[in-house]
């Protein structure tokens, strides 16, 4: 266990790197996933097809394969960047598929009459979605979105394993294999780092859920 004290600054660095990856990917995937959900319920068939294809592809592909494809595929397409950004991009693209499905189920939980009344009054599809349907959908969507985000935090370890230098998981690997610390102690520190992220995330979500249930 001494390793946690000895290598504390390294752990903190790794922790912060993981936090950076998670915040960027969470924001990115919430936005992208909501847009994809809007595609999936839109009256325009090609948009619906894009949304459906995205979900099918990314929900059924292992994250490691997505990261591999992004890290090696994008440069072949002439898009270059650091492994950090490739990692964030891969995690975002992947998580967006799950966000999309959560938001879509929320949209479906809003009674059809709400969107119908909005359309009947002359609101456009995007107005009725953004002003009427999504605000009501997000209430029911908080619990499943919470699970998606917590899964994403855990998945960020795969991004680390894939070579984004210095995140929490990478620190664990470095300390055990390169510096020869005993695995049990090292992993305890790594695990604590993830729990510091996931447990409060769960608590915040439970709070939010209760608050939304009370508020009309």
């Amino acid at each position, binding site marked *: 266990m001494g390793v946690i004290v000895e290598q504390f600054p390294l752990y903190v660095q790794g922790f912060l790197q993981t936090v950076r990856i998670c915040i960027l990917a969470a924001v990115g995937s919430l936005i992208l996933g909501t847009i994809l959900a809007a595609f999936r319920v839109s009256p325009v068939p090609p948009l619906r097809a894009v949304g459906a294809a995205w979900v099918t592809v990314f929900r059924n592909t292992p994250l490691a394969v997505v990261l591999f494809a992004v890290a090696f595929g994008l440069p072949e397409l002439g898009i270059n960047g650091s492994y950090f950004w490739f990692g964030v991009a891969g995690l975002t693209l992947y998580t967006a598929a799950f966000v999309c499905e959560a938001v879509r189920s929320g949209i479906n939980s809003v009674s059809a009459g709400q969107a119908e*009344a909005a*359309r009947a009054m*002359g*609101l456009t599809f995007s107005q009725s979605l953004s002003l*009427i349907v999504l*605000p*009501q959908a997000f209430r029911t969507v908080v619990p499943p979105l919470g699970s998606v985000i917590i899964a994403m935090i855990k998945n960020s370890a795969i991004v680390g394993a894939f070579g984004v230098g210095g995140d929490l998981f990478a620190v664990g690997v470095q300390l055990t294999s390169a510096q020869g610390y005993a695995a049990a102690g090292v992993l305890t520190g790594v695990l604590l780092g993830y729990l510091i992220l996931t447990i409060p995330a769960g608590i915040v979500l439970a709070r939010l859920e209760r608050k939304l249930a009370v508020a009309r």
Partner: protein
Amino acid sequence: MTSDSGGTGTPMIRMAGVDKHFGELHVLRDIDLEVAPGQVVVVLGPSGSGKSTLCRTINRLEPVDNGVIEVDGKALPAEGKDLAKLRADVGMVFQSFNLFAHKTILENVTLAPIKVRRTGKADAEKRALELLERVGIANQRDKYPAQLSGGQQQRAAIARALAMRPKVMLFDEPTSALDPEMVNEVLDVMTGLAKEGMTMLVVTHEMGFARRAANRVIFMSDGEIVEDSTPDDFFSNPTSDRAKDFLGKILTH
């Protein structure tokens, strides 16, 4: 009341040769219908005869397979900005109210004027309060729909539709979801509107309203308009067997 029975001038609603299927089911069969400005038309018919569908095709909530539908002389455009514009001129009141659950009553009434008509917030609120006053629920302005009785919600929904200054109002069984003691408060508002010359198409089972407020009764059966006459004529001498049968069932209740 303006021009009473068709005559010259542009009809407010015109349907010609309209057909509509739901899969195999032929729900609207070759519908021809003209509603003159200021006319109040009550649509009657047994369950499943296509009354709601007829109502919903007029603002294209249901697209049709064939035929022409015009509102105030303009053919219904395809889904998109132009259709939204046309819908803004057609008020619709639903059986289940469909007030926006996350907005207050006042917000429900001001939302479309602000977002669709680009009316300023202050003007929209002023107009909304006048309308809420008129339907008798101005004191409920800051409540959410779920906090109101059914009758109050339906009156709010009528105010919400009127806030757009529609050319025509469509009502699909506006009192069918209400407890009996609340039916009249809604019908009174509708009767008032009819008296003021609003063009209205009303699907309802309220025979009293049909007699009192309608210029015209349309009877539908199996997706067809079977009778089209004045309320007096329809109730005293229906010509078709289907209408006689229907009235027999309804009036014995």
